[in-house]
């Protein structure tokens, strides 16, 4: 069934890696809610074990050829043979290592960041819940099991975004995130059901093998691929459902670093990679994925250019980088997507953690405020921030360059040049907005820079977090580790390619033959972007107003997130809330209730009439009796 059966050691490691965080979640919630310190160490302890296990598994099975599987029959209902179990192959191993490292680093970082917060133990409980859900999602063998943990990841993101539930905007953002991802999940769920009805078995290995799906009509494969892609759009905040990610910045910064940059949003791309052979069976679907990836990449980068909130900039950039990954995978290059996923997880987490340090120190999200308050004097976060931004824009020595180049290579392979052009434009914009931020931070301006009205000023962060010194090391160490990763990872491209590429099942072209000039063009555009940013923000005399800000209409368009938010607001409030449900409610109250209550009133009224009839004079009654008897006698003749 699923490759060679796992022998006990692997199984034990896997169970420890996934189940331990869940145990710590329950333990914290039930037992150690009172003692924050203990619950923090409990959660970090379970994460370290998870990290150790995943690294051990990676080391043990680096040479792995066939996927290892284990399955138990959990839901034994008759018609459904949905076995629950684990699946290990090269992609999983890489994914669980990435996830556990980032989780470990963020949890250590949160020791400092969240120190003194009243809900400290609750925070760690939700963190271990997320770790459990994400790890199990990564190793699940069955599409339904994946969906099971997929929704649990959505739940933990809801809980963590709305962590400071006193703030109305936080709970609002949490609700918005949950409902939007839920919309995506609904499509995913329908896709799974269709798949299950037609193929009868949801095992991922089974779905990927071309033989198993021979009998299934191609039009159906496209439909179910598109539906499953709906789930990816929801979770990775792609084009139609992207507005929840910037609002999700309401949550604490480590949460944004962990969930909304490295791991959770990457789950969508992971699913794409997971089902890559299945998706690649239908060319139509792949082109649709490519298109959506491109649109969301361009859209998000334009929004990033105008945003003043440091976290929102990185949120928009995450959406655009995810767009890049999906473009790469849509273009048919499996390795480029996965490699970019790994590197992006590294430097994006780094960027978020650095901005976390700034916010923690100066308690404001506004970039101009931060620079005026002297963000650049904090050495470690500033240097690592610059390093991260460079990696993001794809400057040579860093990992971003290599993965961006691999993506560009895959785009170049496509017959239609449009995708390549969009990709290059994206590279340019990425470089521009990331270094726009860096230069604003590096060159503070005393005068308050007037920005055309309309940009929503970011709400002040919960002021309850004192910038304590003891937490400093806890925040610094993860930054340094991540910085080294971003620098070093680039050079591992070839071994990773062999590891990922070779392990790939049949099918899937590994990066088209790279056109000679694309990497150079990409580098040139990146430098141009940096140059433009320097001209507008870095130079002594620059008035730190982006070229976009000069055109108010364009500025408002990007600031309003292309009015998508407004559209959703309209849809929910007017159409559903005030429109349909009011009609249904009225129908309930007036039509059904009215009708039946009216019937009862009618009965009571007729009762009153009957009662009055009784009180007539005696002789009328005699007459009535006689009349009825006569009628009955006459009735005989009919």
């Amino acid at each position, binding site marked *: 069934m699923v490759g060679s059966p796992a022998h006990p050691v692997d199984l034990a490691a896997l169970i420890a890696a996934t189940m331990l965080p869940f145990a710590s979640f329950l333990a914290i919630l039930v037992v150690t809610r009172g003692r924050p310190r203990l619950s923090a160490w409990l959660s970090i302890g379970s994460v370290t074990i998870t990290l150790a296990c995943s690294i051990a598994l990676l080391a043990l099975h680096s040479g792995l050829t066939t996927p290892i599987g284990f399955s138990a029959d959990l839901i034994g209902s008759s018609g459904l043979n949905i076995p629950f179990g684990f699946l290990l192959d090269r992609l999983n191993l890489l994914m669980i290592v990435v996830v556990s490292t980032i989780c470990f680093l963020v949890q250590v970082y949160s020791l400092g960041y969240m120190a003194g917060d009243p809900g400290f133990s609750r925070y760690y409980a939700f963190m271990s819940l997320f770790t459990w859900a994400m790890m199990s999602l990564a190793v699940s063998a069955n599409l339904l099991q994946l969906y099971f943990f997929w929704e649990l990841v959505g739940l933990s993101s809801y809980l963590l975004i709305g962590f400071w539930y006193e703030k109305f905007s936080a709970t609002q953002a949490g609700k918005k995130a949950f409902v939007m991802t839920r919309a995506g999940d609904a499509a995913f769920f329908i896709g799974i059901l269709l798949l299950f009805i037609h193929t009868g078995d949801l095992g991922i290995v089974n779905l990927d093998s071309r033989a198993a799906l021979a009998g299934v009509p191609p039009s159906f494969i496209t439909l179910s691929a598109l539906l499953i892609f709906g789930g990816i759009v929801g979770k990775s905040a792609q084009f139609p459902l992207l507005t929840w990610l910037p609002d999700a910045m309401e949550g604490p910064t480590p949460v944004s670093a962990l969930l909304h940059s490295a791991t959770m949003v990457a789950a969508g791309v992971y699913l794409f990679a997971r089902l890559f052979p299945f998706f690649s069976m239908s060319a139509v679907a792949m082109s649709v994925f490519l298109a959506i990836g491109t649109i969301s990449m361009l859209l998000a980068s334009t929004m990033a250019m105008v945003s003043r909130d440091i976290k929102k900039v990185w949120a928009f950039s995450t959406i655009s980088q995810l767009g890049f990954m999906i473009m790469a995978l849509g273009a048919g290059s499996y390795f480029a997507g996965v490699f970019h996923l790994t590197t992006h997880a590294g430097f994006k987490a780094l960027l978020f953690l650095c901005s976390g340090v700034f916010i923690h120190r100066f308690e404001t999200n506004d970039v101009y405020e931060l620079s005026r308050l002297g963000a650049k004097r904090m050495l470690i976060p500033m240097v690592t921030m610059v390093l991260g931004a460079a990696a993001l824009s794809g400057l040579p020595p860093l990992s971003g360059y290599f993965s961006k180049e691999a993506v560009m290579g895959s785009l170049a392979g496509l017959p239609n040049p449009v995708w390549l052009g969009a990709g290059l434009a994206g590279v340019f914009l990425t470089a521009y907005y990331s270094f726009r931020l860096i230069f604003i931070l590096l060159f503070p301006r005393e005068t308050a820079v007037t920005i055309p009205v309309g940009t929503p000023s970011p709400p002040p962060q919960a002021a309850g977090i004192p910038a304590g010194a003891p937490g400093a090391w806890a925040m610094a160490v993860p930054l340094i580790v991540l910085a080294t990763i971003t620098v070093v990872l680039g050079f591992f491209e070839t071994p990773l390619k062999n590891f990922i590429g070779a392990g790939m099942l049949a099918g899937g072209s590994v990066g088209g033959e790279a056109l000679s000039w694309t990497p150079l063009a990409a580098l040139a555009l990146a430098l141009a972007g940096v140059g433009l940013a320097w001209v507008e923000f870095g130079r002594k005399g620059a008035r730190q107003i982006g070229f976009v800000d000069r055109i108010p209409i364009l500025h408002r368009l990007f600031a309003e997130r292309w009015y998508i938010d407004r559209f959703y607001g309209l849809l929910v409030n007017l159409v559903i809330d005030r429109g349909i449900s009011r009609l249904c409610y009225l129908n309930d109250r007036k039509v059904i209730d009215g009708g039946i209550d009216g019937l009862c009133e009618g009965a009571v009224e007729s009762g009153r009439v009957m009662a009055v009839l009784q*009180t007539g*004079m*005696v*002789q009328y009654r*005699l*007459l009535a009796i*006689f009349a009825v008897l006569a009628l009955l006698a006459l009735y005989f003749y009919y």
Partner: protein
Amino acid sequence: MIAPFRDILLLAATLFALGAFCAVVRRNLIMIVLGIEIMLNAAAIVFVGASLHLNNLDGQTFVLFILAVAATEVSVGLAIIVYAFRRTGSFDPRHFNLLR
């Protein structure tokens, strides 16, 4: 048979209708009781006619009993009506409408 039984039935039916009409129309309690008496007699006539027609004496005995029972009925009825008259001073059924 002096007269065919059908004619007797016809006579009794008309008499019965007359009695009923009288009971329903007149606005005086005593006249109502009188109307009902007429209806009883109509029934008695049918009985007599039937017993003659069937040549068996049951009908006759029945009539004797009817007369006796009608007498008791009238006595009880008039007792109540006179009692009512002494209380309310009127025979008009329209006055007795207190119960709602």
